[in-house]
């Protein structure tokens, strides 16, 4: 059988399908049949290309040509011209901006793609357990350059100029942090990698550590050189066994190559790294709590100052940075501050990795330049909302963040804009919600998490959040009165203002932000005892439609709590007091006689 020579790839993403991509695919398949080229040309549907506004998109292989905004009537022209005669159809070709560098796996399209991978540059490309793969892709060159050509001050200057800010969520300028730690005099300093990723729905740091552990090790060594530390500690939760395993392998290989240890690259610089395990407490992502946990103490925060830069691990100056922050650093050193500062917005430079999850078609790990809009992230890269439901909100910043809504869809994403919109960057979890999600229940979900994770040291957080949670429970169960909503808001502000650490200071954010954006839903829960999303079970009623019910008794026999009564061949009735809203009756009914009110 002859090998296939030409591939016609037609985008099968939701948005392209809506623009007749199926018809286009069919046209191409018909043309192949008519011309009798079945053995040489193949037309196939693919996943989303991620530039939906140019759709429908058609890609031709092997010469890697893109056609955009293709209409079914264009298919013959592309087929006759490109496939048969070998002449492209410039009219439909996807614009090729004049960039000298050919970027990406198969990209020839300059900056038309929404994603740029810097922190994830090696993720999915190299074998993370083979250091040679990393070295082949410029691995440890940044460390080499820094040790041989640059002073610590000059290196810090590069970072400051690049505009890199902490990717753990706070957004503190990384170069400045290093400078502060450097300025402190001490006999021993430490650099720490914060790998205590704990937001529900976030997996950015895990992916970096599992896919490219050396980039973090290299950056920690650079940090050590700049701040004057010869010891590094990675604080990672024991719940990440594969990341730990790959880090250990990476550290072993780096030592064998002499890139960790004494006299690195013959420069006299000594640096080594050890791992400390966390037990998976959310509060240990806060740097003072993290340091206490590393010291073997309870993972509780302390008041700052003193900042870890002055007095941290074992009382010594300690520089704590997040995994993703580290992963950016070798690329910045190699490619220069100006290159990095050229990406992003005025005050937020570079890219951000997001874990895109929730009610979205393309759940995934993405890295986008700062300044991209939520609309681009959700409706292009994310491929839109699942099952064609309506977008309602997106939670960024996890339990410390807030909800962004329809009105924020075109806001450029950066540290400052997200705060202005009532949320925050956070570490990069992005949970998309649709019309079936109740915003009060969402706020309750996040609060339940913080109540669980509160360390208990300060009372606003320990007691306040518990009370806040109880109030929300009242709202979702339909027992709340209007005054409760004022109490909810007031208590939220008290907790924010008086808690000791970041966990407590941010824990009421989901409540405040959902109240700001969806107050009408709170009012409906309290006033009308209604949940418009139909997700608060206590506010739902299963009702039997007497006209449709034939009295088959199937529902009554399947009710686990005997809440359904009625004579055989007579309409049945559900006792709302007994009903636990499990839905078993509705599932079993063959006559559509049961509905939800």
């Amino acid at each position, binding site marked *: *059988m002859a090998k296939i020579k030409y591939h016609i790839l037609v985008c099968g993403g939701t948005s392209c399908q809506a623009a007749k991509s199926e018809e286009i695919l069919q046209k191409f398949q018909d043309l192949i049949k008519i011309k009798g080229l079945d053995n040489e040309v193949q037309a196939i549907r693919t996943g989303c290309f991620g530039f939906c506004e140019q759709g429908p998109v058609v890609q031709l292989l092997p010469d890697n040509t893109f056609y955009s905004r293709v209409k079914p009537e264009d298919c013959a022209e592309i087929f006759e011209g490109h496939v048969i005669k070998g002449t492209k159809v410039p009219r439909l070709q996807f614009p090729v901006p004049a960039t000298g560098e*050919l970027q990406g796996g198969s990209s020839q399209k300059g900056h038309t793609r929404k994603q740029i991978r810097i922190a994830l540059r090696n993720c999915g490309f190299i074998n993370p357990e083979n250091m040679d793969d990393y070295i082949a892709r410029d691995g440890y*060159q940044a460390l080499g350059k820094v040790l041989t050509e640059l002073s610590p001050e000059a290196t810090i200057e590069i970072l400051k100029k690049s505009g890199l800010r902490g990717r753990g969520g706070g957004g503190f300028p990384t170069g400045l942090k290093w400078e502060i730690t450097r300025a402190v005099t001490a006999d021993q300093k430490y650099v720490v990698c914060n790998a205590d990723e704990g937001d529900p729905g976030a997996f950015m740091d895990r992916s970096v550590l599992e896919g490219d552990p050396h980039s973090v090790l290299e950056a920690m060594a650079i940090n050590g050189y700049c701040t004057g530390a010869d010891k590094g500690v990675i604080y990672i939760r024991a719940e990440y066994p594969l990341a730990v395993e790959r880090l250990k392998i990476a550290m072993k290989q780096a030592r064998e190559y002499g890139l960790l240890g004494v006299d690195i690259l013959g420069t006299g610089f000594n640096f080594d790294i050890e791992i400390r395990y966390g037990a998976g407490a959310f509060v240990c992502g806060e740097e003072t709590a993290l340091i206490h946990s590393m010291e073997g103490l309870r993972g509780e925060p302390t008041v700052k100052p003193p900042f870890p830069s002055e007095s941290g691990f074992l009382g010594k100056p300690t520089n704590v940075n997040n995994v993703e922050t580290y992963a950016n650093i070798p690329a910045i050193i190699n490619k220069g501050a100006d290159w990095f500062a050229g990406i992003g917005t005025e005050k937020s430079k570079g890219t951000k990795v997001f874990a895109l999850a929730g009610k979205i078609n393309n759940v995934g790990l993405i890295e986008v330049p700062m300044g991209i809009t939520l609309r681009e992230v959700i409706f292009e890269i994310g491929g839109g909302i699942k099952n064609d439901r309506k977008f309602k909100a997106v939670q960024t910043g996890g339990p410390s963040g807030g909800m962004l809504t329809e009105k924020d869809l075109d806001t450029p994403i950066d540290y400052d804009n997200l705060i202005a919109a009532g949320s925050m960057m956070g570490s990069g979890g992005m949970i998309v919600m649709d019309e079936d999600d109740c915003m009060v229940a969402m706020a309750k979900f996040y609060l339940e998490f913080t109540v669980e994770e509160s360390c208990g040291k300060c009372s606003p957080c320990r007691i306040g959040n518990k009370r806040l949670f109880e109030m929300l429970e009242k709202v979702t169960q339909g027992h709340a009165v209007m005054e409760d909503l004022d109490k909810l808001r007031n208590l939220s502000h008290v907790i924010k203002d008086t808690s000791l650490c970041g966990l407590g200071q941010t824990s009421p954010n989901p409540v405040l932000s959902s109240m700001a954006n969806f107050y009408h839903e709170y009012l409906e829960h309290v006033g009308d005892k209604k949940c418009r999303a139909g997700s608060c079970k206590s506010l739902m009623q299963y009702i039997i439609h007497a006209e449709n019910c034939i009295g088959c008794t199937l529902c009554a026999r399947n009710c686990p709590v005997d809440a359904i009564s009625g004579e055989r061949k007579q309409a049945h009735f559900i006792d709302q007091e007994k009903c636990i809203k499990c839905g078993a009756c509705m599932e079993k009914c063959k006559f559509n006689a049961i509905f939800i009110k």
Partner: protein
Amino acid sequence: MEKIKSLADLKKLQENLLAKTELQGNAANSDSRIRVRVAMATCGIASGAREVMEVFIEEFTKRNIDAVVSQTGCMGYCYAEPTVEITLPGNEPITFGFVDVKKASKIIDKYVLNNELVDGIIPVNYETIYHN
């Protein structure tokens, strides 16, 4: 493993490694070997990537096909795990999603042996700062 004693040593090692991969996996070099990368982060493994990788290794050995199969980290397409990227000599890399054990065999039959694509192709939707 020999210690790398200087930046010059490191650069030399990189050159040697690149020359080696150039021979093996250069897309433009049609004499190069077939390259298969399996995304094996926790999530990939949880959805069956390890078994899929074994199928590729076993089938290639059984059918005497010369290929390099390696694991890699997260490719980012969580919704389509397990994901596998295949580079045939002289071709652009193609990423396949939803690759279970059955589909792995199908990919070998159709794509590796006959250059015929199968459903579930994920177009590359990002740029990276390095050449692939």
